[in-house]
């Protein structure tokens, strides 16, 4: 901090750019560990991991959307719709495979629908996903009449509550999703196309990239991620809850922003997003351990987003000056 003061604002931006949010995460982790002796216990670390799974999976979807210069506001309602239908399916058929398939298909339909609307009619993603958010919410409420479906069976419960060794099973799902997302973004043509589309759509189009398909892919992938997150959440609660996960997409978007992905598109990595998600996770967990109420937690997270965006702007300024 002193060093940055001596060297001025721009240097602080460069330090942040270089060491990124890893430094912030590490700093918070150390402070929280010293402050509260329970924080670093094995059980609490497992709790934090379990608690960030849903948001992180959603954040992977949001990240692809944001890299392409889009946003998905429908994520939490698609999550609730797909997750609840999955819970319903497991009760109706007793078949885990069918239940998962139902959740994934429903979520994929919503994601694909978002993508088709956005690329075909040139509707801003903000509006298109706002509309599908309402459709998803209304559809699941119509289907369930506000009813929860509980006691989903041991097999389904394992998805969100099970353990392999000392590690919660959903953490493996999250790790798998992170790897897939990382692979798509870093190693596939469609991943590179997303950065190009988000960075400069006209240039991407001129260089022969199929912009429409790229955007469609991102939206469909985001839908699918909401579905997976929904199945994990409903399993964790052992209950299909159509009203659950209210405004989780905001936490997912927050994770992406704190991870340094620019809202204007074209930048961002999955590794940073998982750190962003972990920062939110440890802050919420720490505040719960300190018995700080939910309203105050929102104030803190809001300020954090503001700081992350200010830093992002500073970094870009320093780059353009450099």
């Amino acid at each position, binding site marked *: 901090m002193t060093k940055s003061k001596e060297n001025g604002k721009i240097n602080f931006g460069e330090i942040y750019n270089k060491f990124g949010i890893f430094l912030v995460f590490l700093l918070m982790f150390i402070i929280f560990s010293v402050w509260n002796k329970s924080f670093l216990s094995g059980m609490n670390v497992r709790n934090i991991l379990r608690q960030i799974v849903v948001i992180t999976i959603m954040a992977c979807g949001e990240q692809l959307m944001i890299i392409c210069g889009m946003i998905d506001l429908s994520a939490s309602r698609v999550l609730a719709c797909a997750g609840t239908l999955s819970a319903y399916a497991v*009760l109706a058929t*007793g078949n885990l495979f069918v239940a998962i398939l139902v959740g994934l298909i429903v979520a994929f339909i919503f994601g694909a629908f978002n993508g088709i609307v956005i690329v*075909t009619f040139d509707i801003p993603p903000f509006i298109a996903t706002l509309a599908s958010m309402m459709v998803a919410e209304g559809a699941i409420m119509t289907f369930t009449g506000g*009813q929860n*479906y509980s006691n989903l*069976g*041991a097999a389904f419960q394992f998805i969100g509550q099970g353990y392999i060794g000392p590690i919660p099973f959903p953490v493996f799902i999250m790790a798998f999703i992170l790897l897939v997302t990382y692979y798509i973004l870093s190693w596939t043509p469609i991943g590179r196309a997303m950065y190009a589309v988000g960075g400069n759509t006209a240039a991407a189009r001129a260089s022969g990239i199929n912009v429409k398909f790229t955007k469609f892919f991102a939206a469909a992938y985001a839908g699918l991620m909401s579905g997976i997150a929904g199945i994990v*959440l409903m399993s964790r609660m052992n209950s299909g*809850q159509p009203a659950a996960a209210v405004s989780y997409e905001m936490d997912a978007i927050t994770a992406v922003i704190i991870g340094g992905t620019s809202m204007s598109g074209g930048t961002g990595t999955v590794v940073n997003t998982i750190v962003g998600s972990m920062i939110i996770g440890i802050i919420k967990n720490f505040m719960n351990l300190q018995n700080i*109420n939910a309203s105050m937690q929102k104030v803190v997270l809001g300020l954090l987003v503001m700081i992350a965006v200010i830093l992002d702007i500073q970094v870009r300024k320093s780059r353009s000056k450099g």
Partner: protein
Amino acid sequence: MKRKLMAVILAAGLAVSMAGCSGGAPAPSGSSDGGEAAENVSEEENSGRVETDIKVSDKEIEAAAETMEDWEKEFAADYELKGDEEFTWGFIDMGFEDTFSTKIRNTFTSYCEKYFPNVEVLEADGELDSNIQLQLAENFIAQGVDCIVIIPQDADGCTGIVDTCMAEGVPLVCLNSVIHSEHLEKEIGFVGSSNYEAGKLQAEWLIENVDDSESVKMCYQKGSDGYDHTAQRYNGLFETLDKAGYNYELKATLISEYMRDVAMTNAEDWVTSFGDEIQVIGCCNDESAMGTLQAYQAAGLAENVKILGIDANQDCLKEVKEGKISCSVFQNAMGQAKWGAVSAYDACAKGKKETASFSIPFETVDAENVEEYLD
């Protein structure tokens, strides 16, 4: 041409997805309890379970106007429980996503279908927003309904609805939760149970069943901040404990927002903070109690903690029966819906602008009497 084709595909896709997501609320054809395979449970049992979670049983509706609880008998002497005059009522729900208010709404409409067959009930979703409820009330008034029945989202936020209805001369019945208005229980009928009473009953169960010779370590899952019912339930519990001189220490209070997922996260963090130190967790509702139970079960500490719920939802009552949740407080949805309908009908039939108030008592449910409440 290509655009038209896309539009057709889109519309078809939407229709298919909507068809997949609609068609009422069919009962799941299987339910697996305690990890057993879903198909082991019979069709009959399942349809019963799902029906009763958001609606009281048909049998209860059929018996509603014929059999009386003790507390109902004095009301029944002065009011008609059936009638065949034609009226139109607007029913403003707190929010269709809220399980308990949905249960009251469904019960209300079922009761009206059976005993006030010529009353048309128009149902509207308040979307957990007082302002939307006000707009719905204005719309109903413009439609010319004969009476408005509301489950208010917030005691203060909904006072405008009282003023609007009184100004327009439309009878209003306030169901389940109060509205802070000088007219309540005077011109505006209140049919419901005091949320303070629910907290008080939790406290009384605790005083009776948990020894306080050593300080009892407690946590509390509080409902969403800023709402009257949240404060009332909280105050009812802790003021009663304080008045009785109960020896307890409140180690932590976190907001569960009445939601299972949030309550579960809170409880997981308490397990980290306090381990097996906590003996009692008071919860603002059954969903929070269920989330708490799941977190403590996952940590293998469910045996150590007594969890107190409110609402007596069926899945929570199953846990009460198994001794995993200590008690819940039964909110009588049937009583609220039935006497709400009677209050509205009475005002309409007699051409009054004022509606009658009925106090519906809460009842404590624990292992001893849970069978009476399980369907």
